């Protein structure tokens, strides 16, 4: 390998390393940027409320209600006219001194349980609330069952193996004994 070729090879690999590094950097900074973007919506319209306490409650409330028109967004995220109206209505109720429960009742009376992203605990939602716990318990039971079966299988396998070995051993031994007896008998017969 000539010196020139070696030099160009070295240069090339350095270049590749630099490109790779900068790609990693780019990816990391993009990820960071996307994380920074997440809470952006929560700043919406908060400054229109009279006190910081109300603003905090408002932020919490608009995140908990679902936009009736665009059903995969909450009131905070959605910019549909109905969400804007409902946000205005929630601000009005907050300024009038309504409690969180009153605001919830107000919205449910008009738009149904559907608008609650945190459904009430009642007969129709027991399944929803209890399913995770039940499924977790079920999974736990399955794991316990599998572990216990494996343990039993290994312990019985050991016992069976030694039992079989013993039986084989016995068989071998008796075979040997039989043969010895036979040969003894035949020897005797020959002598006689």
């Amino acid at each position, binding site marked *: 390998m000539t010196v020139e070729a070696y030099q160009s090879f070295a240069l090339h690999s350095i270049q590749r390393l630099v490109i790779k590094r900068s790609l990693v950097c780019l990816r990391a900074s993009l990820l960071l940027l996307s994380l920074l973007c997440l809470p952006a919506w929560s700043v919406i319209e908060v400054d229109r409320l009279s006190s910081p306490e109300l603003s905090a409650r408002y932020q919490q409330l608009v995140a908990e209600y679902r936009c009736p028109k665009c*059903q995969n967004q909450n009131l905070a995220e959605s910019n549909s*006219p*109905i969400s804007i*109206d409902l946000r205005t209505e929630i601000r009005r109720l907050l300024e009038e001194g309504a409690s969180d429960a009153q605001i919830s009742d107000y919205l449910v009376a*008009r738009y149904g*349980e*559907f608008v609650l992203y945190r459904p009430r605990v009642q007969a129709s939602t027991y399944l929803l609330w209890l399913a995770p716990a039940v499924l977790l318990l079920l999974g736990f039971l399955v794991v316990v069952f599998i572990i216990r079966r494996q343990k039993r299988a290994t312990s019985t396998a050991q016992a069976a193996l030694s039992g079989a070995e013993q039986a084989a051993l016995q068989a071998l031994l008796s075979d040997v004994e039989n043969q010895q007896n036979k040969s003894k008998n035949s020897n005797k017969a020959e002598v006689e």
Partner: protein
Amino acid sequence: MGRIKLFIPLIIFVVLAAILYWGLGRDPNAMPSALISRPVPTFQLPALEQLESTEDDNLMVAEQAEILDESLFLGQVSLLNVWATWCVSCRVEHPYLMDIAETGVRIIGLNYKDEVGAAQQWLAKYGDPYAHTISDTTGGMGLDLGVFGAPETYLVDHLGVIHYKHVGVVDDRVWRTTLQPKYQQLRDALDEQKNDS
């Protein structure tokens, strides 16, 4: 026992497939109204046809205008149709509303978050299928009704109780398969009541 165990994945698959197939046929946007079996919320709003729109179209002279309220629904079975001139689907629906109004169905209009002048022009141009039109420029009554977009159509009985809500355009299919049977049922019940007394 071993045999049955072999079938467990198949059973799980069949159950899951059945549930998912059932879900496929359902409309994810279908949302039952919270006001079914409840009276139409109280309101006091001007009748659209009696409002005078000024040049900037936001202010109106409401002094002389007739004020409508929930007693509007008493005594007759009606449809309450939520509409606006900014609503494209309402334009699609309008000719069909004209048709059913002609057959004697009483339709009350709720002009929702609209400009008075534009709404009046609309009715003058395309025809007026409504027995009365409530003008709800701020959307307050729409909010009380749980309206989340026009067009919406409510079926209200002679006592002012809401029986059904249809979201979206009322066309021939919707009218014949869902709305008309329910409407007819209420009409028949009312007629029977009248005959008895």
